[in-house]
Structure formats: structure tokens, C-alpha cells
């Protein structure tokens, strides 16, 4: 039994052991809060060989540090600002000084920025970093109380100084010799002066790094904010402001509350860097922001406050493509404070849009409520270098161009500029002052040579924030110790694995998947029942048997949220042992499963359904093609084939029912990349994915299982069931597509319900263009909202529906190996059938909401990463195929601009832009442009949305940024290269 004790809190010390403060409640009431604090003398200092403190210790004297200023060994104690502004530096593998991290510092970081706090927490656990968390607020000698009139900031600074002083005395009383120095790192000059007066060794981070042996590399990681050691210089003061100042936060929040201002996420426009928008609830259309000044230093994803102009000043989005690389190519990185006339000119021209009918709310950003800056993958713009001498170590200011078109160029100072040319690098933004046209940032690390697969792959993962580190030891320790040799234990009484499990090993179960599938998480069976009905079963890998709540493996899976599939790499949500072996329902081996078994009438009406944990032994693993061939071969009469035919006949009826209920048949341009071989991974071809009847067979049964499970868990846990929904799209989303269809094709899109939309999409047929219907479906898909996970108790019952599937309830149950939401659904279903009690966290709405928020975000990011990976390989494939001239492909116009057209190449599943050098006759209301024919004497040619054209596609490397770009030019009906 553990030792239970009573802690004494002497009343005489109440001044520092009690804390009284006033707090405002959500309802606006002021309440008094009294809290206790127990001060102790057993909070360990963490120094190895300390004679006084017991327990774990990580701070060791390091002889290899070789710091110029502290040759005899030392520990550092950074203050809060070091972590707030210099996290990249501290995270660097080269920064290995043993470090004391104070509780006061951790709490301040947590208070100031949650993302940084999370990084700090990860940092503490990083192997090789010797970081000791010292709970100074609980130690008798170091705890302090805020004095009267003292600001929280000053109080914390004083606490940090006190802890530093304590460390010094503590070490000198516990160490006879080899006494390490404890150095307070702070960027605050005033704090340093105070510390020095108290006899504490202190130094700025910059000076500390300068004394380190790897100073050159580390100094680059120092964020810009750290560079002005002294005071802000005159140079900055002298500059004129390029952007309006932000309003104070309190004004912003009050404005948002009062409805004068609007809060939302800033979205940059991918075609025009001088435009952005913010979607807010008040308006059905997003608020348009035109021009640099009105976008006022917002970066993609920031939460901003917007002021909307009077309706007379509303504008329509520009109908022109404005590329920042082209417009700003002559801008000098060193003194962007000076407005160059050429730039201003070019920009003002780009901004002045023609009045058009599509006006939408227009406004300007008056403040940023929350920055969402992260590390961005960039290239160094070679023209911004003043010296490209590869051995030059002089400090240069250069431009980094982010890979994403949605981000502005970032100005950074580095000594390694020449060596970074031609590399993909990671850059973070540190600040964006109103005298600087560009944000300022710093170099984090190099990812590798541009177009090397490793660098491209890693940059893709970073760009979409996919966690891709290998699984750590703590996680792998959660796996069964037998590893690959694990088998379902023999069926015997009292064997835990068999508890309450049905033995379904004799059923004729098989799996149907794409070729080469390693993580088989579903298998099926069907058989005729004596009463004329049919029994059908879906068997899903029993992942929750291996992944228990509250284990390191579970938390890792929750934070990864999903497996990410790139063309040549899979980033697993769960360790491969589970995904590709123990939980993979391979043929001819016994596996644990969670089964949903229905009795269906021959017309596919559900008579009943039951769920059970089971043991299965799949009889075969088919590819879609194999299953299809088997089904269609009249000579085959074996029971397995019969069961596939049975499943197929049911699937056809299930699908017909869904369609009758108004389900949408949406199209997404899915292409498949053929890789040469697994080693070289050079793409040799791109083809569109083929859909077979058997694809649909599997899909129908998965949908059926998901719907049935959703009903069951919602019934059992109405407050916290993990469900998935697809909200109906707002009508305004379709306005443009409806208008285009009406004007160009005379077709009508009825969006009053999903059923009518499905029906009208079916009618969008152009006999002369067989792919036209697919194109409309793709465009319609883009008008919809995306499906999302949600906690059933958090939203109204009437908003549960899945619009696309036309189902009143839905969840994800069928892929627990690769989706975390499914793992939760499994746990809830297991509890619903009384197999095991539900873990406390799944009773908590708050917890479920939080986990699903992460899952939604990861899901979205994974999709984008997958798409970007396909795009990259399509580019490589084009390069491989096209030699010099590029590749000619058929394409459809999907958008018209004043100076170009947006096209979609269905065969490759990619979108591109064709730009014209000279202006055209542009009719925005009819979505047409008119250009002179390239053949003399043929007059003008009109191009409109939905037109079929031929484009030439080549991959061109931007000379300056090394950014690989797909460049498209029109071949038919006119040759745009001549324009």
C-alpha cells in the first residue's frame, strides 16, 4: 500500500501558502477565489550526485560543452521569453547544454501560447536533451508571492531570479568540487541588471550562443526578435509605416462582441496574392480583402478581426491572376522598407478591379486575434542574395519563398545563404512589423536538395503537419511481447482472448482490397439461411483488443488521428506490427475481429443486426479485379464464389436504395501512379483509377456497417457517441456553378435537396463531351462542405445527417487500423454490447470533442498531403514522358480570368493555369474570353468555361526559387504561346 500522509501548512506562513484572487465568471460575476499552496523541502534539484535530493536526476556536468565563457561546466536556466521567441534554437539537436526549466516558466509559456507549450512539453521528453523541470513554486525556499503593485510579469521574473540564486547556493552546499555554474539566460536587459545586482550570473541568449562551439549554425536559428539586443534602433523609427497599426486586443474583442467587427480565419487567394477573404457567420459570402494594406499583415490561417466597409464600397473578386513572384521579383530583401514605385504601380493596377455583378462584402483587417504561424517549407530566392560566393559566411538578408502559394515571402537573415540555394528549407515567421512589407523570420533547418525524393517527401509532411517520427520505445512497449509470432491463443475456457467471443472460424469469410494492400481491416461473408433470408457479415480487425485507452500507443494514435498515404510512403497511425500483421485480416490465419452480422431479406431489407467480438479465419484475400473475375466466371460454382455473388446482389440493392433516398454520386479525380519498382520509385505512368462492381460491393457493406454501428452507439451513449456527419451545403456555394451552367449550357442545377441535386447532376449530360458530367460533378463536389466527426451530445439531433450519403446517422467503424475515430467507435460499441465497460474518458463530452477535433484536422491534412504527393509524382511522370516539348493533353476550362484560364486535365487529375501575356476581351458575366486567333485571318476565338481545349504541359523550374512549377500553355483552339 502506498504511503498516505497529511501535509502540514503552518498558519503563520499563510501569506505565502494562501493565494487570494478575484475571478470573473462566464456570467460576468466577480468571485473571490482562495487557494492553498503546500510548500515542501523535497522538490528535487535534478543535479546528478546531489547529496541532498533523492530520486531521478538528469543534470550532469558536461566536459564536452567547451563554452568560451564557462569552460568549467555549467547549467543554463532560461527565462520564459527564451522559449516564447527562440524555440527553434532550443529545439536544435546542436543545443545540448543541460538546462533547468522552471515551473514558473512552463506556466507562463502555457499561458501565452498553447502551441509553444506543447512544443515545450515535447522538448522535455526529447532524448539527448537534459532538461530538468524544477517545481520552484512548490519548494519552500523558492516559492514567492506577488507583491502589492507588482505586475505578474515582474513577479515571475523575480521568481526566476530567486530560483537561479537558490540553485547556486544549493549546488555549492552539496558539491565540494566541480561546482557547475548556473546561468540565467534572458533577453531582458533590465532583468539582467537586476540579476547582476543580486549576484546572479546572467547573459543574453545571443551572447551565450556566440560562445558555443557550433555558434555559426546555431546563430542562424536565433529568431529575428532576438537580434535587437540593445534598444530598437533609429533605423526602424525612421521608417514610415506601410501598414495601419492594429487596434488593441481589448478594442478588437469588444468590437467583435458588439458586432461592429467580424472574427474569422484569414484565407489567402491562391490565384492573386493581393487578395484574401475571411468567412464569418454574419454574411453568407466571405468578406473580401483587397490589397496589401487591407489584408494588413495577415498570414494564411490567422484569426483576424475585420471591419466591413459600407455596402457602396463592396467589390467583386479580381478576375486576374496576380503572381507575387512575377510582380515582386525586383524587390530587394535588404530594404523592403522603401516602397518602390514600380511595385506600387504594379500592385495598384492589379488591385483596381472592374465593377462586376458579383459584389461581396468587402473590408479591411484591423487586428489579429491569434497568429497561427508555424514552420513553412521554403526555397531561398537566389536573386535576393548579395553574395553567392559559396564560402561566404557574411550575414545576408534574403527572401525565402514558401512552397505554398498562399503565403507571403519571408525575409530572413542568415550566414549560410549560399549553401542553402537549391535546397528545401524550413523557415518560421517571427514577426511582421508595420514598417516592413514582408514578415521577418529565421532559418530552422535544411530538408535536402530540391526534387530529391527525401526532401520533397519530408517537406510535404511538414507542410501538412503530419507527425512522421518513428514510434518511440514507450509506444512499442505497448505491443504484445510475442511480436510477429503472436497468434490467437487456443480456444480454452478461461482464456482471456476468447472471453465472450464467437467462434466464426468456419465461416467462408474473404477480404477484397486494392492490389498490394497490407493493412486489411475488413472482411466479408454471406450465406443463405433456411428461411430464405440471407446472413451477411462484416468483420473488422479488433484493434481495441490491442490498443487500450490511456496507454502511450493510444495517445500517439489519437494525436496522429489517421494513417497518411503518400504515393510512395505510408505514415502509419499504429505501429506496423498491428497494422500489417496482427490486425490485418490476412487469409488462412486466425484473427480477432469485431463483427456486424445482419439478417437481410433477398431485397436487402434488414431483419435484424447483431454485433459480436469474434475469431475469424479468412479464406482468401482478393483484389477487386480477382473478385470481379471470379464473380463473372460462370464455370465457378464453389461456395466462396457463391458468397461473393450473394454479397454482390445485396450490394446492388443496397445501392439502389441509397440512391433512391437521395444519395449523391460524387466524383473526385482519382488517379493512380505506377511506380517503376519499389526501390527506385520512379513514376512511369499515371492512369485514372478504375471502378469495378466489386469496389462498390465492399463500399456498400462498409456503409451498412457504419450506419448500423452509428445507430447502436448513439442509442447507448446519446451524450458522447462518436459520429460523422456531412452538413448540407449553403445554397450560396452553388450560385456560381448554377450561373455558369445556365449561361454556358442552359442547364439547371436543383439544389433544394440532396436527392434533387443528384437527379439534376444526372441530367447534366453533353453528348459531345462524355467527360462533361464528371467535370460538373467535380465542380459540384467543391461547392460542398466536408464531412466531419462530431460528438453526438454536442450538436442538435437534427444536424446529425450525412448529406452526401443521405443517411440520418453515420459513423466510421470499418477502418480502425488507419483511423482513430474508428477505434473510439469500437470501444463504444464494445461497451454498448456489454463486452467491456466504457473507459471514463469516453463518457466525457469534453474529451470526445477534443479528440475528434484533432481527428478532423488530421483527416483534412492527410487528404491534402495525399493529393500534393500525387501532384508531385504527376510532375515527375510528365518530366519523364515529355522530354523537351512537354506533354499534350486534353483539358477543360473551369475558370476564366482577364489574363488567362484555369483548366482541369482529367486524365492526370490536375488543375493548372494558362496565362496570357496580353489582355484579352474578357466577359466576366458570361465566363468567356475572346482572343485573337493564332492563325492569321481567322479572326477572334472565344473560349468559355466548360470548353474542351488542348494544353501543353511542362514542368518548369523557377530559375530563382528552384520551385518546380507545372506550366501549361494552350495549343487548341489557339496557341497561347504566341499571345
Amino acid at each position, binding site marked *: *500500500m502506498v504511503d498516505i500522509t*497529511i*501535509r502540514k501548512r503552518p498558519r503563520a506562513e499563510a501569506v505565502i501558502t494562501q493565494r487570494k484572487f478575484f475571478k470573473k465568471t462566464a456570467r460576468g460575476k466577480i468571485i473571490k477565489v*482562495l487557494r492553498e499552496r*503546500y510548500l515542501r523541502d523535497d522538490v528535487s534539484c535534478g543535479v546528478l550526485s546531489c547529496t541532498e535530493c533523492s530520486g531521478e536526476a538528469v543534470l550532469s556536468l558536461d566536459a564536452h560543452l567547451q563554452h568560451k565563457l564557462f569552460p568549467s561546466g555549467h547549467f543554463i536556466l532560461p527565462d520564459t521569453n527564451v522559449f516564447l521567441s527562440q524555440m527553434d534554437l532550443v529545439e536544435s539537436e546542436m543545443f545540448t547544454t543541460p538546462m533547468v526549466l522552471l515551473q514558473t516558466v512552463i506556466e507562463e509559456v502555457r499561458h501565452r501560447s498553447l502551441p509553444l507549450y506543447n512544443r515545450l512539453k515535447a522538448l522535455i521528453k526529447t532524448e539527448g536533451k537534459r532538461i530538468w523541470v524544477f517545481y520552484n513554486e512548490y519548494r519552500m525556499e523558492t516559492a514567492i508571492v506577488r507583491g502589492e503593485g507588482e505586475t505578474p510579469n515582474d513577479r515571475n521574473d523575480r521568481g526566476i531570479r530567486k530560483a537561479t540564486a537558490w540553485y547556486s547556493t544549493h549546488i555549492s552546499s552539496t558539491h565540494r568540487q566541480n561546482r557547475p555554474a548556473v546561468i540565467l539566460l534572458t533577453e531582458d536587459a533590465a532583468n539582467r541588471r537586476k540579476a547582476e545586482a543580486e549576484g546572479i550570473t546572467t547573459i543574453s541568449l545571443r551572447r551565450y550562443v556566440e560562445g558555443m562551439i557550433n555558434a555559426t549554425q546555431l546563430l542562424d536559428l536565433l529568431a529575428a526578435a532576438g537580434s535587437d539586443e540593445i534598444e530598437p534602433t533609429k533605423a526602424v523609427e525612421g521608417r514610415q509605416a506601410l501598414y495601419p497599426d492594429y487596434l488593441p486586443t481589448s478594442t478588437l474583442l469588444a468590437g467583435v462582441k458588439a458586432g461592429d467587427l467580424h472574427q474569422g480565419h484569414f484565407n489567402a487567394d491562391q490565384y492573386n496574392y493581393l487578395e484574401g477573404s475571411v468567412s464569418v457567420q454574419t454574411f453568407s459570402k466571405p468578406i473580401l480583402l483587397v490589397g496589401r494594406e487591407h489584408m494588413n499583415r495577415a498570414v494564411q490561417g490567422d484569426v483576424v478581426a475585420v471591419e466591413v466597409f459600407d455596402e457602396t464600397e463592396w467589390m467583386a473578386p479580381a478576375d486576374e491572376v496576380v503572381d507575387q513572384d512575377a510582380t515582386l521579383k525586383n524587390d530587394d530583401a535588404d530594404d523592403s522598407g522603401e516602397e518602390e514605385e514600380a511595385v506600387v504601380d504594379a500592385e495598384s493596377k492589379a488591385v483596381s478591379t472592374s465593377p462586376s455583378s458579383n459584389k461581396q462584402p468587402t473590408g479591411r483587417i484591423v487586428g489579429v486575434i491569434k497568429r497561427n504561424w508555424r514552420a513553412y517549407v521554403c526555397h531561398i530566392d537566389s536573386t535576393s542574395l548579395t553574395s553567392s560566393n559559396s564560402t561566404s559566411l557574411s550575414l545576408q538578408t534574403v527572401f525565402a519563398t514558401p512552397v505554398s502559394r498562399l503565403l507571403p515571402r519571408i525575409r530572413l537573415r542568415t550566414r549560410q545563404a549560399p549553401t542553402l540555394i537549391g535546397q528545401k528549407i524550413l523557415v518560421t515567421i517571427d514577426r511582421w512589423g508595420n514598417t516592413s512589407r514582408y514578415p521577418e523570420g529565421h532559418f530552422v533547418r535544411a530538408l535536402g536538395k530540391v526534387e530529391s525524393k527525401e526532401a520533397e517527401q519530408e517537406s510535404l509532411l511538414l507542410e501538412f503537419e503530419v507527425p512522421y517520427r518513428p514510434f518511440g520505445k514507450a509506444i512499442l512497449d505497448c505491443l504484445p511481447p510475442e511480436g510477429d509470432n503472436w497468434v490467437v491463443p487456443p480456444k480454452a475456457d478461461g482464456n482471456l482472448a476468447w472471453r465472450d467471443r464467437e467462434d466464426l472460424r468456419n465461416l467462408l469469410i474473404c477480404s477484397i482490397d486494392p492490389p498490394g494492400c497490407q493493412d486489411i481491416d475488413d472482411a466479408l461473408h454471406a450465406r443463405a439461411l433456411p428461411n430464405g433470408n440471407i446472413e451477411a457479415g462484416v468483420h473488422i480487425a479488433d484493434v481495441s483488443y490491442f490498443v487500450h485507452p*490511456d496507454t502511450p500507443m493510444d495517445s500517439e494514435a489519437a494525436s496522429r488521428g489517421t494513417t497518411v498515404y503518400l504515393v510512395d510512403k505510408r505514415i502509419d497511425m499504429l505501429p506496423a506490427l498491428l497494422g500489417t500483421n496482427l490486425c490485418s485480416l490476412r487469409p488462412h490465419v486466425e484473427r480477432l475481429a469485431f463483427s456486424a452480422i445482419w439478417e437481410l431479406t433477398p431485397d436487402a431489407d434488414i431483419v435484424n443486426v447483431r454485433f459480436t467480438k469474434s475469431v475469424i479465419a479468412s479464406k482468401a484475400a482478393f483484389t477487386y479485379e480477382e473478385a470481379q473475375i471470379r464473380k463473372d466466371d460462370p464455370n465457378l460454382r464453389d461456395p466462396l464464389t457463391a458468397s461473393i455473388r450473394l454479397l454482390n446482389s445485396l450490394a446492388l440493392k443496397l445501392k439502389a436504395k441509397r440512391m433512391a433516398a437521395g444519395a449523391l454520386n460524387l466524383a473526385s479525380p482519382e488517379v493512380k501512379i505506377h511506380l517503376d519498382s519499389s526501390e527506385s520509385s520512379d513514376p512511369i505512368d499515371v492512369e485514372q483509377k478504375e471502378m469495378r462492381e466489386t469496389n462498390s460491393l465492399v463500399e456498400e457493406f462498409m456503409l451498412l456497417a457504419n450506419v448500423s454501428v452509428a445507430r447502436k452507439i448513439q442509442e447507448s451513449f446519446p451524450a458522447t457517441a462518436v459520429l460523422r456527419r456531412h452538413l448540407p451545403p449553403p445554397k450560396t456555394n452553388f450560385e456560381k456553378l448554377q450561373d455558369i451552367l445556365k449561361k454556358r449550357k442552359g442547364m439547371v442545377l436543383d439544389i433544394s435537396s440532396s436527392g434533387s441535386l443528384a437527379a439534376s447532376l444526372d441530367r447534366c449530360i453533353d453528348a459531345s463531351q462524355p467527360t462533361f458530367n464528371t467535370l460538373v460533378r467535380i465542380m459540384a463536389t467543391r461547392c460542398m462542405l466536408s464531412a466531419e466527426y462530431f460528438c453526438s451530445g454536442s450538436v442538435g439531433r437534427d444536424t446529425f445527417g450525412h448529406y452526401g450519403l443521405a443517411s440520418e446517422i453515420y459513423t466510421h467503424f470499418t477502418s480502425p487500423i488507419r483511423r482513430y475515430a474508428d477505434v473510439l467507435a469500437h470501444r463504444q460499441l464494445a461497451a454498448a454490447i456489454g463486452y467491456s465497460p466504457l473507459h471514463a474518458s469516453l*463518457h466525457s463530452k469534453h474529451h470526445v470533442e477534443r479528440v475528434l477535433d484533432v481527428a478532423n484536422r488530421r483527416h483534412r491534412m492527410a487528404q491534402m498531403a495525399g493529393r500534393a504527393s500525387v501532384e508531385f509524382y504527376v510532375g515527375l511522370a510528365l518530366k519523364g514522358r515529355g522530354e523537351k516539348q512537354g506533354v499534350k493533353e486534353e483539358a477543360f476550362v473551369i475558370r476564366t480570368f482577364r489574363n488567362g484560364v484555369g483548366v482541369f486535365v482529367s486524365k492526370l487529375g490536375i488543375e493548372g493555369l494558362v496565362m496570357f501575356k496580353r489582355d484579352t476581351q474578357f466577359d466576366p458575366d458570361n465566363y468567356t474570353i475572346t482572343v485573337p486567333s493564332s492563325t492569321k485571318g481567322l479572326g477572334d476565338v472565344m473560349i468559355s468555361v466548360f470548353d474542351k481545349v488542348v494544353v501543353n504541359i511542362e514542368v518548369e523550374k523557377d530559375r530563382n526559387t528552384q520551385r518546380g512549377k507545372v506550366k501549361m500553355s494552350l495549343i487548341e483552339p489557339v496557341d497561347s504561346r504566341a499571345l
Partner: protein
Amino acid sequence: MSSRIEILNEGGFRSDGRRQYELRDITIDMSQQGTADGSAIITHGLTQVLVSVFGPREAKMRSQTLYDRANINVEVSIASFSTGERRKRSRGDKRILEMAATIKSTFEPVVQTNLYPRSQIDIFVQVLQQDGGLLQACINATMLALASAGISLLDFVSAVTGGVHSTSPMLDLTALEENDIPHVTVAVMPRTGKVTLITMETRLHVDRFEEIFKLACEAGKVIHGEMRAAIRLRTGMLISAMQSVSQNAGEKEDEQMYEY
């Protein structure tokens, strides 16, 4: 994020500096309060409760008189200044009535009511300050007040709260902790090891429950030790004060005190 305070941090400290199994400071004041036959003020951290016991005395109301044993009557009042948010709770408040009923049912099997037929024992519980563990403080203070009134009890009773943060059990919760994690209050009779009360308003996993239950029983013994020491101290003081008056009376009281 609802709360930015960590319930249990990675260093194993709770938000007030305690570790998982550390109980808050306990102070006990058993000095005479007004005309009560027995009274006690107990403080668990920042939760403070005063209990006054009157009786056993003749039952005032016929209807409540039990011919073979004493009737226990519990009234709870919560001072409006006891929480930061001033809020007046009427006597008829459902929560207050429920708490009174809980205290009553906790002590009914412990008080030797059959020794006092046709009488009543009135227990007035006043909550002076609240910071979690309210029921625990009420029960412990009632125990002490009953003892100081010299009422015969079968065994001692001591109560404690316990909760589970993720998978880590912890004892003697503050209001902040109670708001965040599932918790139980357990009252045990340390000598016999019997449990006279267990309440739970939040859901708790079965496996976790067993763990926290065992811990709470252990913690009850620790609190028992503290309360016994306070009673001894009080008795000692009474003895020395009474010695001049009557030695016998002192001894008798002493005997009774040690019965629990």
C-alpha cells in the same frame, strides 16, 4: 480549453503542491461553542465546518419520538460567505437536504441509539468555508462533535474523498479537483473496517473504483489517527480542568472517550 490548470503535472504534483496521496492540513478545534453539548470545528485545507450537537434530550415532538431508541435529527446550513460567489441557499435547498440525509444515514448505524429511547439527538452542521471535500468535513466534524457530547458510539467514523485523474488516483480533493475529475466520498469505521457511506456523483470506471476505494479506506485510518489525537488532547484538557471538581467524573468521561 476549459481549465488551464493541470490537475496532476508530470512531476507528480497537484495544483496546490501536494502529491497524489497527501492529505490537506487538518486542524481540529473542540472547544465549547455556546450551549451545545458537544461541538467541533474541523478544517481540511480551506474547507471549514462547525458542528454542534444537542442531546440526547427529550424529544420535543411526539410524532418523532421512537419508543425504543433515539431519533437523530440533522440540519445543515451553508454560510453565504463560504464560497467566493456569494449565494444564499435556503434550508429547503435540495442539495442541503440531501447532505443532511447523507450525514444522518452515515451515523444512524454508529450511534448507539438504543441506549437513549424516546430522546432525540440534534446535529447542526454549519459550513463556514468550502474548498472541496465538503461531505468529508461534515462527517468528520459530526463525528468529533458527537464524541465531545459524550454520546455512545459503536465505532469511530472518518471520511475522505478520492478521485481519479486519468489513471492516477488522488486523495482529499480541492474544489478545483472535484470540478475536473470523477470522485467518491467514503466514510469508514477504522476499527471494524466497515464502510458506512460511499457516494459518487460522477461516473467512474469499475477498475478505478476499486483502487480508489481501497485507498480511501487507508486514508480514513490516517484521518482517524488525527481525530483521535485531537479528542485525547481535548479530554486531557478537560480532565485537568475537572480534576479539582470531581476526579470520578473525569475518569468516567475518559473511559467513554476511549470506547471508539
